[in-house]
């Protein structure tokens, strides 16, 4: 039979199932295929911290949401058009994410008595019938039975066959959205290159799912989305953590320095360690240390030796590294610290996102300890900002903290990747060897940007000692002199602030430089805020937006931009951190819009907040 094909501008799909159902893989395959078809997209993986929480329970539900379209997409979507649920718990946990009238593709085999009980539905409940009567379209599919039937001749065990269920479902969704199966077939062939029976089974399940979508009477229509009209160029799909890995590798190449990463596994930053451990041929050394402190201190050792040195972690790990970051600041050595923020405090919600480490990044150290703080705004932006972090650290001999977050680290979007020739050069020059009769070497002398020389071991005549004790200006010898301490403290502050001189001025993200409301965001909220600002402006309101990537020091023209607005609103996924910095530094009556739920803002709630401010 043939289904009418409806063209849509955007679509949002959410895959949800048990942690063991392979929903992240299913979602990332759909994303990859969609990217290759030229749609713009934004994704939101939403999964529990436990590897396999008790099967069938709400706690064990893993979700993956993608918004894609033929126009620019800025967020993963407030609510989805299609919700795929592999069991009753997935329905229970995710029905709130489905838009009114949306489609539920339900694996009927996940709605048995036991599944209902595990999901804490009443024994007599029929949740699918209930949601149908409230206006949703339910497409029940016997996924388990159909997959088993499809693979009856595969020779695989039932356990292995059941693991192909997610590919059957993916096949249905590919059919529904008129996607090609080829990229996933390629992926499966490569993934199971050494186990062809598994490759064949997964591919067959995928194809049979696609065929089933076409054959079943359950769908009244199918959809297609034209390629997006976005900036021309060649694109690839990328997550924030992947972009971070590429930026670090690239910075090593352009600076011509060996790269050293000291790291300790922590969610959601570990993928950066995994990615860089595969970059050995680019001169990248990764060291999995015994703890967070050893991770950062090993990097400091490598920095002294002349490497581009980095450490990666998340908030709780950064707290452990604090003393060492202060040491690197005091040494005035280049060090890049990447904090992929997660919902805190303490262990908090490791797989959920938050922006609550800003004050920790700017102020959270002993004594007067100024470092540079940058933040990436989207998955692809992690490349630019991480690269810039490396550049500033190396050229200014200062620790730079790059703030990412769980949402952009795991989320994906299309990236118009750069050609290596277009990457900004990174200028590194080590101090030159000194002869016996030359002037004495002054390790803490400074250039016009207050930057001291980088003198690495192995350089003749520059033997010198560095330490955490206060140093005499110029010589670097231990000094307890009170006036010298004042000079050095001021010098370190000036040096950090001088970084702003080299950075581009802040541009308006949306809107005019004056108006009724200025919205200021930072970090991973860019997409949602941008979409909400655009929609608010479309209603005729004079709302403008700026988005900060430089949190310390602030861009030099920030004060000027703030002066153009009487009302300033600062949405943050914390209880109000940037808003404090702005009020403190610029004495502006900025207001906060704050939520800490472990999830990104919805466009709707932001839009309401903006309209509320201008009315």
């Amino acid at each position, binding site marked *: 039979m043939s289904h009418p094909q409806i063209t849509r501008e955007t679509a949002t799909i959410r895959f949800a199932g048990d942690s063991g159902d392979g929903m992240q893989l299913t979602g990332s395959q759909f994303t*990859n295929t969609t*990217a*290759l*078809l*030229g749609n713009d997209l934004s994704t939101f993986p939403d999964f529990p911290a436990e590897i396999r929480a008790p099967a069938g329970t709400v706690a064990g539900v893993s979700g993956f949401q993608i918004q894609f379209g033929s126009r620019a997409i800025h967020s993963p979507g407030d609510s989805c058009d299609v919700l795929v649920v592999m069991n009753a718990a997935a329905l229970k946990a995710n029905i709130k994410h489905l838009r009114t009238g949306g489609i539920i593709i339900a694996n009927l085999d996940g709605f048995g008595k036991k599944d209902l009980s595990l999901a804490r539905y009443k024994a007599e409940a029929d949740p699918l019938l209930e949601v149908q009567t409230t206006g949703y379209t339910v497409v029940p599919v016997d996924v388990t039975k159909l997959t088993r039937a499809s693979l009856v001749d595969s020779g695989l065990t039932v356990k292995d066959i059941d693991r192909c269920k997610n590919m059957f479902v993916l096949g249905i969704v590919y059919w529904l959205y008129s996607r090609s199966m080829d*990229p996933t077939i390629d992926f499966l062939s490569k993934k199971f290159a050494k186990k062809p029976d598994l490759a064949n089974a997964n591919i067959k399940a995928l194809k049979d799912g696609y065929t089933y979508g076409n054959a079943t009477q359950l769908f009244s229509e199918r959809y297609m989305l034209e*390629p*997006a009209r*976005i*900036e*021309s*160029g*060649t*694109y*690839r*799909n*990328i997550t924030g953590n992947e972009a971070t890995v*590429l930026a670090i*590798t*690239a910075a090593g*190449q352009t600076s011509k320095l*060996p790269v*050293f990463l*000291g790291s300790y596994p922590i969610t959601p930053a570990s993928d950066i360690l995994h990615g860089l451990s595969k970059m*050995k*041929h*680019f*001169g990248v*050394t990764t*060291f999995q*240390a*015994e703890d967070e*402190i*050893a991770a950062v*201190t*090993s*990097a*400091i*050792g*490598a920095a*002294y*030796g*002349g*490497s581009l*040195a980095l450490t990666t972690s998340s908030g709780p790990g950064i707290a452990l590294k604090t*003393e*060492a970051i202060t*040491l690197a600041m005091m040494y005035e050595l280049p060090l890049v610290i990447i904090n992929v923020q997660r919902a805190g405090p303490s262990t908090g919600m490791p797989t959920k996102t938050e922006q609550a480490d800003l004050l920790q990044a700017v102020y959270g150290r002993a004594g007067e300890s100024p470092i540079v703080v940058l933040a990436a705004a989207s998955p692809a932006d992690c490349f630019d900002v991480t690269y810039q972090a490396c550049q500033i650290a190396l050229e200014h001999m200062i620790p730079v903290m790059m703030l990412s977050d769980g949402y952009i680290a795991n989320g994906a979007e299309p990236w118009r*990747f750069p*050609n*290596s020739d277009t990457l900004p050069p990174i200028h590194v020059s080590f101090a030159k060897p000194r002869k016996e009769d030359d002037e004495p070497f002054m390790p803490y002398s400074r250039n016009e940007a207050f930057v001291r020389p980088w003198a690495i*071991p*192995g350089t*003749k005549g520059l*033997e*010198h*000692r*560095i*330490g*955490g004790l206060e140093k005499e200006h110029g010589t670097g010898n231990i000094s307890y002199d009170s006036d010298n301490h004042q000079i050095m403290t001021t010098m370190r502050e000036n040096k950090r602030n001088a970084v702003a001189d080299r950075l581009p001025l802040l541009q308006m993200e949306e809107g005019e430089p004056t108006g009724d409301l200025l919205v200021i965001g930072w970090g991973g909220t860019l997409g949602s805020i941008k979409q909400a600002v655009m929609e608010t402006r479309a209603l005729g309101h004079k709302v403008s937006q700026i988005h900060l990537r430089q949190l310390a020091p602030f861009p030099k023209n920030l004060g000027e931009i703030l002066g153009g607005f009487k009302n300033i609103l600062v949405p943050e996924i914390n209880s109000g951190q940037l808003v404090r910095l702005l009020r403190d530094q610029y004495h502006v009556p900025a207001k906060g819009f704050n939520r800490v739920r472990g999830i990104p803002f919805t466009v709707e709630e932001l839009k309401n907040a903006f309209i509320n401010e201008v009315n």
Partner: protein
Amino acid sequence: MEATLTSKDFASDQDVRWCPGCGDYTILKQVQSVMPDLGIPRENIVFVAGIGCSSRFPYYMNTYGMHTIHGRAPAIATGLKISRPDLSIWMITGDGDALSIGGNHIIHALRRNVDMNILLFNNEIYGLTKGQYSPTSRPGSVTKSTPMGSLDHPFNPLSLALGADAGFVARAMDRDPKHLNQMLLRSAQHEGTSFLEIYQNCVVFNDGTFDLYTDKVSRPGSALYLEHEKPMIFGENRDKGVRLDGLRPEVVTLGDGVSQEDLWIHDEHDAVKAYILSRFFAVGNEDGFPRPFGVLFESKRPAYDKQVAAQMAAAKTRHGAPDLDALLKGNETWTVA
């Protein structure tokens, strides 16, 4: 042709600020005197220290140096050595720095076996914080923080190092500079992490704690100098020895039917016997066993930094010249016109 360096070339221009009579002075002197014998250019040597009296050491060496933070020197030295295998790394630490706040880093450094030399100055007390008990202080020690005596069971540093699979484990003392000099040389020659515990007298807060072993009069009867493939003999008249009955050591008197041939012949490469030696640890030698000095154990385990370098080289061979553009492009792209 380079001029030959002397120990004076290794002294920095900074005033040494240890207490008069501190055991650190002799150690500094011996380290400075052994340096020229290593034949390593001064600029390729880095001293890395944590925090504490001993950790001020790098400031007094005219080499590259890092005074770091409390307990973390092993990790800093590890990062430096992995990224710069060409450097000779000396890590200076104390009993508090290495075994208390830095306990985690020290065991991991030892198991990894990065090529560096760890000199642990053990004085069984916290000096720079002015006299609290340390993780090697004897039970009952009355200190600033233990007015009724310490309840802590102390670490046995050499047993700890052997337990962490250290590849080189030795002990020396500040008051026997000649032996200390030999041990420093042996440490330097060992490839991998060498762990040298040095009994060091804190003249202010724990004066005389090692006198039994270091005093010239009592030393012969209480200290056992180990030599590879030599019988274990000690005593004022060199009339005592250690014999092994299976795995059970015993002190015997030579003569009366016991000859040198009956004694335990030291084998530096025997990890089990090294552990037995490290257990000669009773306060005041109350178990009758002398305290061993010298190299207890040495193995030829490959150094971590060498293995890291080998993996890097293998990756370069496997992947060929790095291609940044291919990396940025990835496997799958699409073009928007």
